[in-house]
């Protein structure tokens, strides 16, 4: 597997529009890629679950998770002047949205729109972020009924970004978690592995890890790995402070985030695999953010779970940034883990 192929796959996934609870465009793309290779099913939450039998006698039942959904907005009302009132599906930086263009709806019916605010010349306050309840999406509709017809309540709104290569990096929307989807799809295409592999393309991570919870309860694997895109806060700063992750320094292993602790033997194993393979890695700063591991590790009688993340600057924005080397090294680490993991790693 090479860096270019992974990059191309990520750029393609990035442009697909799949909001929490409306992940069908990602499912369709993944089915197209994987249907000939693995057994696929969709569950009640919209998770797409792939099963790949082991090469030889399975050592373990392993689940690898990557979520399909991206942060998005939803039409929650219509103003008299034909503009749209919006709500966030997932978490938004309150400072981000003004001045952006968006896409309202999916497929053929999708419409361009913009989020404009009061011009700076007329604004009383130009230092505060404008709260979402005061923002509107303008699609050019002149009246309320026209807006209602063009963008009914519940219509999903996406960042319109087309992903691309920029300098030494990749930029696009939804890298959280299309980076994970890229690695997981590639693992399934390159399999089988010496373990029975469940590839969980999960739904609804951005609204509370709800897809992963249900899938973990159903599948009850021996061990789980969560592949994520995570915050890279490695920007220039006045004071020295340890960043959550740094772009270009390899996959980030979670020790302990806000909602899950990694079992020490599992973390130690992953570090040993990385070191043995000469794969660069970093430890994610503890206490930062949460992932699907929050629901998986405590599902059923409990599932040992490790989150492996690719650092992403400007996450949850139309222009996230990742390093293609981090993508490659995450793939190599995950593949090595699947090759050498044994029941001893997860035995209590």
């Amino acid at each position, binding site marked *: 597997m090479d860096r270019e192929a992974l990059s191309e796959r990520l750029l393609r996934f990035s442009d697909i529009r799949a909001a929490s609870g409306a992940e069908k465009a990602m499912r369709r793309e993944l089915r197209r890629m994987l249907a000939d290779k693995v057994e696929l099913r969709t569950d009640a939450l919209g998770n797409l679950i792939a099963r790949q039998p082991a090469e030889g006698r399975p050592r373990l039942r392993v689940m690898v998770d990557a979520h399909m959904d991206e942060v998005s907005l939803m039409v929650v009302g219509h103003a008299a002047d034909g503009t749209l009132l919006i709500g966030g599906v997932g978490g938004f930086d309150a400072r981000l949205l003004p001045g952006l263009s968006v896409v309202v709806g999916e497929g053929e019916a999708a419409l361009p729109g*913009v989020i404009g605010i009061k011009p700076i010349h007329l604004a009383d306050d130009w230092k505060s972020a404008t709260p979402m309840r005061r923002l509107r999406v303008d699609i050019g509709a002149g009246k309320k009924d026209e807006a209602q017809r063009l963008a009914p309540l519940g219509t999903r709104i996406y960042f319109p970004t087309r992903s691309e290569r920029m300098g030494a990096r990749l930029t696009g929307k939804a890298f959280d978690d299309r980076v994970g989807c890229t690695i997981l799809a590639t693992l399934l295409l390159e399999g089988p592995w010496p373990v029975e592999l469940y590839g969980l393309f999960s739904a609804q991570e951005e609204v509370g890890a709800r897809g992963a919870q249900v899938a973990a309860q159903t599948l009850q694997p021996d061990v789980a790995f969560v592949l994520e895109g995570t915050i890279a806060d490695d920007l*220039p700063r006045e004071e020295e402070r340890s960043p959550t992750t740094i772009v270009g320094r390899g996959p980030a292993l979670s020790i302990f985030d806000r909602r899950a602790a990694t079992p020490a033997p599992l973390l130690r194993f992953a570090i040993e695999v990385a070191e043995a393979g000469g794969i660069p890695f970093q430890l994610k700063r503890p206490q930062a953010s949460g992932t699907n591991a929050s629901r998986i590790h405590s599902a059923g009688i409990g599932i040992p779970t490790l989150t492996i993340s690719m650092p992403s600057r400007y996450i949850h924005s139309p222009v996230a940034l990742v390093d293609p080397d981090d993508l490659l090294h995450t793939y190599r680490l995950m593949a090595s883990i699947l090759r050498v993991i044994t029941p001893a790693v997860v035995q209590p």
Partner: protein
Amino acid sequence: METTALLRQLSEAVGPPGYEAPVAELIERLWRPYVDELRRDPLGNLIARRRGSGAEPRPVLLLAAHMDEIALLVSGYAEAYGHGYLRIEPIGGIDRRVLLGQRVWVHPRDGEPLPGLIATPPPHILSQSERKKVPPWDHLFIDPGLPIEQLEARVRIGDPITFRADYLELKNRRVAGKAFDNRVSVAVVTLALAALLERTHAWDIVAVATVQEEVGLYGATTAAYGVAPTAAVALDGTFARQHDVGEDEAVALDGGPAIGVGPNFHPYLVDRLKEVAEHHEIAHQIEAIPRGSGTDAWAIQVSREGIPTALLSVPMRYMHQPVELLSLRDVERAARLLTEFIADLRADERPVWEDEHGS
């Protein structure tokens, strides 16, 4: 010429204040078929003359549409973990509230433009109060995705940066994009010049794509001096009503071009514009401007011995944001009004004060 294709080209062109050469080249290509002379003045104004049919010496009508756009400037470098960033400063009235999530082009003095992203520290490492504040300039960077050494080799302090915003066709012939302020007026002048090919007009028309409006109306100042016109019409965008801007502050989107009324404008020209609009049934509106108009009209009016000046504006939402929004119908109405106004000027006509009539 299709209005939307014209405006798209103009919107996408690059022309920060003081760095207008790329957009000036485009406008020169657009205007060349319609004019008799084209020249640049020392500040970079693009000055085009279309001769009238009257006997010499002919009166001259100056049309001023600024071609510069608000932009950013590279003010320094920053480095973290080997990654390179550019520090930035505004050129013109940049709105810091709309910078996050934007793509930009950095324009090195030599070499290809460099793509970049506007960067700022993410919310989770900020204090609760900082998370609700627009980032200050020292927390804003450009991230071009390059190691610091490569960045320093390619970009210099002072290189300009422009927004990279798509031109969007919305519903009801409304469109959104960057730099509509004031490329829309360049489009209006272009459409009017094209229409005048089929018309006769007594006055000379001198169309100027002015420079450096956004930083102090400097282009209009020298253009008015150099051209020494009989009268002038400045063209610009003005505030249109939007969800958070009401009737007290703005004109109607899709209500037609706005004719400025106030001390900046000669009543004779205001009345003539209104009269022509009414005669030809062109939708228009009056914009009351009690003080300075903040447009090229402000500089032109006090050039030389004083120049009778009017202002024609296209209503625009979200001004100075990368998603400026306007109606193509208003653009076409403005062009029609300007064309008819020019065709209607008589060879012996001069702007006069009401109390001078018959004296």
